[in-house]
């Protein structure tokens, strides 16, 4: 391998990237868009769940509960219903996902028996949102109960020991909304890197075939490995810039805590980027059209990273056969590493296994991609 030839290709490829607005858009704008789209798409469904209340009592106590719902960031009060029929209509036409019905004897039972009962009606067509809504609703109610209990303690001069604080705390913990987003944003970073990386490199070889420049290129003494290195290095740099954009958005915009170290992040991201760039390159070598190659590259990276990396569905809840399949999904290792780095600030040693797997993966892909390219027209 001669560095002179690698450099010639590297310079040429960089010039072409800079002069092709389309590839620059793919490189820089798409990750931004995807981060916002996916980042918000996911945070939207756990906040501002449309809610309607049917307060059959209309007392101070019952309205206080309704106001607690209205003040919660997880619910947005769409209005108060006047009867059951209206509640049913609101749920039917999708104006609200959750309806709270406060019985006419709410204050009385609360005061007399010390236990009020509130009915929650849920639209469970989207089970995920429904279970989240139920959880948040019970948390709001729990908050209300503890306030009522505190008041009653004060009134009766009773001691705190008579309460059941364990139950209360558990519900408040469940309420901590940021957990879901913190969990998901690192996965979004992995997804964006996978899509962008493979998209970038999927065009490089196909473009040469389409423009008719490949025939001359393969008539030169350039070696497949030199060609691959020279073509992928510029995209590697672009990919690392994308990684910086994603990381900055995750930390500064979405406020996800980053507890790991930057060198660890850079190293593992470099490994993952190598894998996806090589996947794109391999596809580009095999499919000699730009449109075809970019479609296949998208399919090969987006689907497995979305479904099988543990980003959206926990791997340990998948059927055993599917769990086995996830071992060949490179995103799996990167998502594990990212979650470790973002949330736990896990030290190197703890992430050794996924890092090792990803390294092995990168080496295999480099070899496959370099060998896939044949300097022949046959």
């Amino acid at each position, binding site marked *: 391998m001669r560095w002179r030839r690698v450099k010639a290709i590297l310079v040429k490829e960089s010039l*072409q990237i800079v002069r092709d607005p389309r590839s620059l858009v793919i490189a820089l704008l798409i990750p931004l868009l995807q981060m916002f789209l996916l980042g918000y798409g996911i945070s939207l469904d756990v906040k501002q769940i449309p809610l309607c209340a049917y307060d059959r009592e209309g007392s101070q106590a019952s309205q206080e509960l309704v106001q607690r719902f209205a003040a919660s960031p997880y619910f947005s009060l769409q209005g108060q219903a006047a009867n059951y029929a209206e509640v049913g209509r609101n749920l039917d036409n999708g104006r609200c996902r959750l309806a709270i019905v406060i019985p006419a004897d709410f204050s009385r039972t609360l005061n007399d028996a010390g236990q009020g009962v509130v009915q929650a009606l849920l639209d469970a067509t989207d089970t995920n949102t429904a279970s989240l809504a139920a959880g948040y609703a019970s948390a709001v109610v729990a908050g209300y109960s503890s306030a009522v209990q505190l008041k009653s303690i004060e009134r009766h001069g009773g001691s705190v020991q008579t309460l059941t604080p364990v139950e209360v705390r558990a519900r408040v913990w469940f309420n901590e909304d940021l957990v879901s987003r913190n969990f998901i944003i690192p996965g979004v970073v992995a997804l964006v890197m996978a899509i962008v990386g493979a998209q970038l490199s999927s065009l490089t070889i196909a473009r040469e075939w389409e*423009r008719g420049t490949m025939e001359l290129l393969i008539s030169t*003494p350039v070696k497949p490995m030199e060609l691959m290195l020279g073509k992928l290095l510029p995209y590697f740099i672009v990919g690392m810039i994308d990684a910086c954009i994603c990381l900055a958005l995750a930390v500064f915009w979405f406020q996800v805590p980053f507890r790991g170290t930057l060198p660890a992040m850079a190293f593992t991201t470099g490994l993952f980027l190598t894998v996806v760039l090589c996947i794109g390159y391999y596809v580009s070598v095999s499919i000699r059209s730009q449109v075809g190659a970019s479609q296949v590259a998208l399919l090969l990276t987006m689907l497995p990273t979305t479904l099988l990396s543990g980003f959206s569905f926990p791997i340990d809840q998948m059927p055993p056969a599917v769990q086995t399949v996830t071992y060949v999904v490179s995103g799996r290792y990167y998502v594990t590493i990212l979650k470790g780095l973002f949330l736990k600030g896990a030290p190197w040693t703890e992430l050794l296994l996924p890092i090792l797997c990803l390294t092995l993966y990168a080496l295999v892909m480099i070899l496959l991609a370099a060998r896939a390219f044949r300097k022949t027209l*046959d």
Partner: protein
Amino acid sequence: MTANAVAAQIVVDALVKRFGDFVAVNGVSFEVARGEVMGFIGPNGAGKSTLIRILCGLLRPSAGRALVAGIDVAQDPEGVRRRIGYMSQKFSLYNDMSVVENLRFFGGVYGVSRVDMPDRLRFAVDMAGLTGREDALVATLAGGWKQRLALGAAILHRPAILFLDEPTSGVDPSSRRRFWELIHALAQDGVSVLVSTHYMDEAEYCDRIALVNHGRLIALGTPLELKQRSLGGELLAIEGERLGDAMASLQSAPGVRDVAMFGSALHVLVDEAALRLPELEQRLTAAGWTNVRARRIDPSLEDSFVHLVSSSAAQAGAAA
């Protein structure tokens, strides 16, 4: 080994290339000496490009052998690639890069050293006549400049052998002439050039030409040799009105070997021009054609080519 074989830069021996059932190159053999310009003439689809691609190591031969600079293309294509320059049929420099960026790229992949690079770049830019336009994007250049730039890119590393696949197609006549002057200058320096074309007039610029049709080599020699040897007779040009219908009548006339349409005239190959010229004129006039004028002409390569193609087709027909 003969003295000629020692000097030969390209040796092709019974070369065959099949694509499935289709035989693109069918048992072709020839040699090209150092400093020789060899022209490949034939219609589109004759197998010229396939042959050149095999010699550049881009396609593997199905049978036979090809040595380029003494290296077997099937065994060491990389060794061949280091020693050759190639201009593909389709223009294949990078349109979104400038003149000098393209040249620097090809210099780099051909391994031109940093020390030699400035000189080679200047030479290539001069040769292409692009001095002062080094920073122009290639997309903005006209056809003739592009072709010369592509030639410049192909010779940056001073190859001993050049393969040019229809380098002048789609280029205006004055650019074509200039291009051929460059080819001859390179040959003078000892570069062997194998160039394909479908322009018959360009064949006259070659030291030797090979006529190819349907993957077969149907004639090989200097332009003069081919014209004399292939025809085996003398040529008459007959002009007149609506002569197309006269072909059948002429074909059966005594002493006539071949008749072919050339524009509005008929070219007739006869055993002896002095004898047959008045005979044919009379025959046509008697049969009702008007304004018939016949004259003896020197055969062009196109005449030989048409004759050779039809006689090789006749042979193939007889064999089948």
